[in-house]
């Protein structure tokens, strides 16, 4: 057998191995993250949103933290504007992910619209995780994960929303605690140092202190300005 043929086979074996780890990473992330959709669907209905609105949020907003934020703010009695502002401030990071992904994806037109919609924490994280395997593996990781999470997140949102609708008194099923626990689970991995922990505790205390004084929703948004001021000064 000529050496070039051997090299070709070796190359293919290596490429298919890389492709299968990318697929495996993408699938496992899609399933586990998608399953949180149950928590979102249930929480949305528990906070007064209809099943249709809950599903539209997952289809159109498609960014977990922003979705939880908007239902959290409106559920606490905040205005639509407060809810939109809080959710949008949390969505700014997706723009930064787009900046990272765009030069690697090199897409335009309708494909760019789809790519933008699935630009979230998970698709970007898996793509960056494939960096040692090259640009092709990164692109695959992004698309597999983005589309996978999209499919499962939306299916599980519907399941959660229908489930919560059937429950009646949501407190009897602990849904009133599931929402703050979900927020806590989202913020926890970000508390990497003492500075971050102090900021988190200060913002929590500030929001509680302002709740009886400011209109609902504003105590939450106000903490974003604390973050901006600290970020500018540091």
């Amino acid at each position, binding site marked *: 057998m000529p050496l070039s043929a051997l090299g070709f086979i070796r190359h293919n074996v290596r490429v298919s191995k890389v492709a299968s780890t990318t697929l495996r990473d993408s699938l496992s992330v899609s399933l586990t993250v998608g399953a949180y959709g149950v928590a979102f669907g249930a929480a949305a209905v528990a906070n007064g949103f209809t099943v249709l609105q809950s599903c539209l949020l997952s289809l159109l907003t498609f960014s977990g933290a922003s979705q939880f934020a908007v239902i959290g703010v409106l559920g606490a009695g905040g205005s639509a504007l407060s809810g939109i502002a809080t959710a949008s401030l949390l969505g700014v990071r997706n723009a930064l992910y787009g900046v990272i992904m765009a030069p690697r994806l090199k897409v335009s037109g309708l494909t760019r619209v789809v790519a933008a919609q699935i630009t979230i924490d998970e698709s970007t994280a898996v793509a960056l995780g494939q960096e040692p395997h090259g640009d092709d593996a990164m692109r695959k990781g992004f698309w597999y994960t983005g589309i996978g999470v999209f499919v499962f997140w939306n299916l599980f949102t519907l399941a959660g929303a229908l489930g919560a609708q059937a429950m009646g008194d949501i407190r009897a099923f602990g849904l009133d605690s599931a929402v703050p626990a979900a927020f806590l689970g989202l913020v926890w991995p970000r508390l990497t140092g003492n500075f971050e922990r102090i900021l988190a505790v200060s913002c929590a205390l500030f929001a*509680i202190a302002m709740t009886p004084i400011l209109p609902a929703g504003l105590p939450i948004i106000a903490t974003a300005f604390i973050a901006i001021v600290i970020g500018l000064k540091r």
Partner: protein
Amino acid sequence: MSALWIATIGTSVIAFALKYSGHSVPERWLSHPKIQRINALIPIALLSALVAVQSFSEKSKLMVDQRLVGLSVAIIALFLKAPFPVVVLSAAVSSAAVYRWL
């Protein structure tokens, strides 16, 4: 249109606009270190505020109820490095138990 519909549609439109802008604007606009830093701090501030308000308020009133138990259990679960679904589920189960039987 109800506040819930305005919130649903408004959040979705802005969320997409943000995602699409990232794919379209020149990289240097968003790669400024101050923007990166603020972007890392905002989720910490907002999510912590949401944890607090969702745990200890009802509309504009402060109150302590079964949610304190749920939150405490979630914190313990996170310290034990439990995965996200376990954190949420253990908070829900403990809170429901307190609500039903106490």
